């Protein structure tokens, strides 16, 4: 332990603690803009500067380690002045028309400037032009970029896609797509991690809420909402709800209040995905001699984009099962349209996702199987919150209500899709049943996740040893793919999720500065699963009904047409 003082108060912190973290541990706030723990500790914004007694110059608290006996002053006149002026300088290059920014109210620069009481702009404004392809799901507004480099670092170090880089030189230095290329021409998976780590509104998702409002306004469509597993863990975060208040049933009520005619649960189609994917895996195992292993999960479009761009020769090893979103799109506009007795185009289906890559996925042309566009619009959780806010709904006062039947019924296996390891765990539960005719202990496969990025395990099903791996975060995935390619890693089945911790940490999730909430959100889903009696996808009564009334059997002809895809044919960008 190291002893020091902050603002006169004696503190004791573990060795190698930065001043910023030491202050945080002692409930002293030091404002900062570029700092991202362990990813971007570069001292670029110089807002976190503090004075150390006896030192002439200020130091950045984010990357200076507390030394024994250090006397730290976080609010000395010198550090106050420097912090204020550095924020003013940042503002001179920031398009501060806050009311028209979607990050207004959840912006580090805005709150820091407000906390510091900045009320004048003493410097010449020098704001970069905002030029971007607005069709792309991921948008960079150069007029708001504060060059904190977080996007560069998250994409370099965590996702290892190197989409962002510094551009130009000298005082013109800024951030841009690597090599000044068009975003549609580089290997961007649209994972959205740069968005969730941007302190301001410089990186945002393409806002599709107006398309939904327009559909409501047209009044000629049956409006259907579906809610992905991880959405229920986070939708209340930016609406001022506690976890206890932000239940999935209150979310169903909120969506009804927005005006949706039917509110369904994507976890139903997660169960459907498991039926198809587990069957596919079991078939492969039966025909092991002629099949190539490992089989990869295919429900994460960021991961599918990744494998298509980086490891195209592994694409044939992806499960051909569509993602729950796309299966749902196809089922709603086929079976459910039949139930309603309407043509598929009469349905407007909005898919609520914790994901930005889903905006890409729903636009993949060859995916549509229902005769209409299977999914009309994908909205992220952030857009969901904006939609609810714009309707002026007092969510806290809403009574809870169930999802609509039959597509609102899901098993615990469907719920856990939203966290790392969930797809694998759900698939193994059902695969076990398909092979043995008996259910395993539902907790038999729970040790398939590790929030650090990678986990491997071996299970035995009816005498067959299965080597499985679960990996999340594209940097970790890249390493595993290289090992698979070289033969160094030998597995039968691998689950890949582009975002760290899976969808719970997805690029479409609410942004909470300085916090990585993916693991905690994931645990909510795991708890939901444990609390349920229905824990196997194949036992979901709605799934049984769907196969009995419409699909026939897994991997059957209808399934093949509606629920499977050839990812090799997906165009990466139109």
């Amino acid at each position, binding site marked *: 332990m190291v002893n020091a003082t902050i603002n006169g108060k004696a503190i004791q912190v573990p060795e190698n603690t930065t001043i910023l973290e030491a202050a945080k541990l002692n409930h002293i706030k030091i404002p900062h803009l570029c700092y991202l723990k362990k990813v971007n500790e570069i001292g670029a914004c110089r807002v976190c500067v503090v004075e*150390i007694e*006896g*030192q002439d110059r200020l130091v950045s608290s984010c990357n200076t*380690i507390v030394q024994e006996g250090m006397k730290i002053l976080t609010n000395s006149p010198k550090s106050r002045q420097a912090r204020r002026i550095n924020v003013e300088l940042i503002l001179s290059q920031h398009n501060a028309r806050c009311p028209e920014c979607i990050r207004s109210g959840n912006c580090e620069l805005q709150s820091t400037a407000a906390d510091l009481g900045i009320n004048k702009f003493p410097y010449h404004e020098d704001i970069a032009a905002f030029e971007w392809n607005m069709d792309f799901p991921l948008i960079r507004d150069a007029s708001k970029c504060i060059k904190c*480099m977080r996007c560069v670092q998250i994409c370099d170090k965590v996702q290892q896609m190197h989409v962002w880089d*510094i551009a130009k*030189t000298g005082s*013109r230095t800024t951030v841009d797509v690597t090599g*000044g290329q068009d975003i549609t021409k580089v290997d961007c998976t649209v994972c959205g991690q740069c968005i969730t780590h941007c302190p301001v509104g410089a990186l945002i998702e393409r806002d599709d809420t107006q398309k939904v409002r327009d559909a409501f306004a047209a009044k000629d469509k049956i409006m259907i909402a579906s809610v992905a597993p991880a959405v229920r863990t986070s939708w209340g975060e930016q609406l001022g709800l506690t976890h206890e208040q932000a239940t999935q049933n209150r979310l169903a009520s909120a969506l009804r209040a927005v005006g949706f005619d039917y509110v369904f649960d994507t976890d139903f189609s997660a169960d459907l995905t498991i039926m198809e994917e587990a069957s596919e895996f079991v078939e492969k195992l039966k025909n092991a001699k002629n099949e190539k292993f490992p089989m990869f999960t295919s429900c994460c479009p960021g991961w599918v984009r990744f494998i298509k761009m980086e490891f195209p020769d592994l694409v044939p090893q992806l499960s051909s099962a569509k993602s729950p979103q796309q299966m749902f799109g196809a089922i709603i506009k086929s079976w459910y349209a039949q139930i309603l007795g309407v043509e598929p185009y009469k349905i407007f289906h909005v898919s609520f996702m914790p994901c930005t890559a889903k905006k890409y996925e729903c636009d993949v042309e060859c995916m549509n199987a229902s005769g209409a566009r299977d999914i009309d619009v994908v909205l992220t959780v952030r857009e969901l919150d904006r939609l609810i806010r714009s309707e002026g709904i007092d969510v806290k006062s809403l009574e809870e209500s169930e999802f609509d039947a039959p597509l609102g019924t899901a098993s615990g296996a469907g719920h856990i899709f939203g966290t790392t390891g969930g797809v694998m765990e759900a698939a193994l539960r059902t695969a076990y049943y398909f092979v043995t005719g008996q259910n395993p202990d539902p907790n038999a496969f729970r040790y398939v996740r590790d929030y650090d990025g990678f986990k491997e395990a071996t299970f035995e099903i009816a005498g067959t040893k299965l080597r499985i791996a679960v990996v999340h975060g594209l940097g970790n995935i890249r390493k595993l793919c290289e090992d698979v390619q070289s033969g160094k890693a030998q597995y039968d089945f691998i689950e890949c999720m582009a975002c760290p911790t899976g969808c719970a940490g997805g690029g479409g999730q609410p942004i909470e500065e300085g916090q990585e909430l993916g693991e905690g959100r994931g645990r909510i889903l795991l708890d939901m699963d444990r609390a349920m009696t229905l824990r196997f996808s194949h036992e979901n009564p709605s799934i049984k009904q769907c196969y009995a009334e419409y699909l026939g059997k897994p991997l059957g002809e209808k399934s093949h047409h509606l629920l499977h895809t050839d990812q090799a044919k997906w165009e990466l960008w139109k």
Partner: protein
Amino acid sequence: MSRLSITNETKAQATVESLHKDLERRVVGAPPGLCPLDLASSYLKVCAAQTCGKCVPCRVGLPQLERLIEDLIDGKGDMSTVATIEKTAETITDSADCAIGYEAANMVLKGVKGFRDDYEAHAKAHHCTADGFHAVPCVTLCPAHVDIPGYIALVNAGRYADAVRLIRKDNPFPSVCAMVCEHPCENKCRRRMVDDAINIRGLKLYAIDNAGHVPVYREGEKVAPATGKKVAIIGGGPSGISAAYYLGMMGHSVEIFEQRKRLGGMLRYGIPSYRLPREVLHEEIETLLTAGDIKVHKEVSIGGKDYPLSKLREEFDAVYIAIGAHTDKSLKIPGEDAEGVMSAVELLRRIGDDDYPDFHGKKVVVVGGGNVAMDCARSSLRLNADKVTLAYRRRKDDMTALAEEVEATEVEGCEILELAAPLKVEVGEDGKAKALWVKQQMISNIKGGRPAPKDASAEPIRIEADIVVVAIGQGIDSHNFEESGIAVKWGCIEAFDSEAVKGENMDGVFSGGDCVSGPATVIRAIAAGKVAAANIDEYLGFHHPITLPVEIPDPVPHNRPACGRVKMRERPIDQRIHDFKLVEKGMTQEEMEQESNRCLRCDYYGFGKFREGREVEW
């Protein structure tokens, strides 16, 4: 009113003068990798501020040039902008009334020609050729890219053996370089912006003086598994041994073929022991040879009939030619074949083999102005010569030797005769040299960046000389290799940047060091060995990374007030000129602490922390 008054410098003037000095240091310490156009534009701003405002080309033209260049940087220009810049700069150069204008425009013209690629990139593609990567200056300027801030931090922390290990990651010769490196790393040291460059070499010397014996492998570490591949290295100098060291670590079986009795190349046969003690060199080489399966064959000459290159290529999977530059260059003046006239190579080679000639009672004249000339002059003093004179055809300032070498040569008692070009050697009837006649020179126009001498209208001078040492450069014994099919140009072996030699059917033959570059520095030869090792490893189908061996402490914040640079101490002159023992003395602990604390840790602060300020493996 007094008729005249004394002009006293005002505080403002004094401050401006000090700012000029600051800027001077800043320009010298400018980091590598900047946008050349951005610099051209900012220099123009300085120039425009200097204009008196009388004449059109300078008053109006310079700011216009600046704006045009800014347009290009902002992506608002095209090739016509470049043409306008060029024409305008030409006109200002031709028509400005004084140097403030025409020299400013001339700088722009130099740029338009010198970094035309960058002008065109800005004009056509609206981007800069600079890649935006701001490497650590000292590391970048070191040819071997040694992790300098890293080892300074380790020295500062008292971890001397770790400092040696860290240096060896990129340069196997920390002891040698601590004593004789020309330290290009110091040229752009960012500390110059504060006061002066860090004494990097001095800190390295402190590390090796205090590290004790540092074996290649620590406990638990060992050489990589044997690859079964054999590599031949021709030449046991710094380049060859460096390559052998890394290739040995990688598990390849290495054999060094050395022409002379002892290893070391120019480290032994070129650098006298008062700068690099033999025992230090010997110990360092012995340590390096333990890196792996490395055999040494001495007094074997490769390339001739006895052992042609083709035979070597049959026996080995790859060959690295690092024969250095060891042949004489002659003055081509009458009397040069007289007894008493010798080449620098000849003199230093004899000393290298511990055969010390006795110059007692003799007058020695050394011809040349490079480091080798200084080595010859200082060695002659130590060989008890009565008088040593150094004759050089340019001025002292124009010498290629390091300033501190020239200074040491002079203070040790060698007379330096500037502007003296050798004319003839006067030979006595006994066939022995009696004097060197020199033509007096005057300094003239600057050609290729250096002022050229020309004959002065003055009588030749006679310098009495029993011994004349010719130290005007060395050549390369590349003839045999040329005959085996390797491309040779001006005597130098031709190789690609990968060090693969040019020539037909030369797969697996690499070459580097002085024999490729021409006579250069120790650190460049070492760097060539490192590059050869990496590329030979790849050529053999492997990728053995050489990795960061130690953890480097993060900097602890402390004040860095402007502070003088610690200079190395030397033994008193009257003691040192009678022996060949080391002249230089290391820093004291106190000096080491002050000097290492001056380091600005560019691996951490500034761009360093953003893009991981170090190469963790190569």
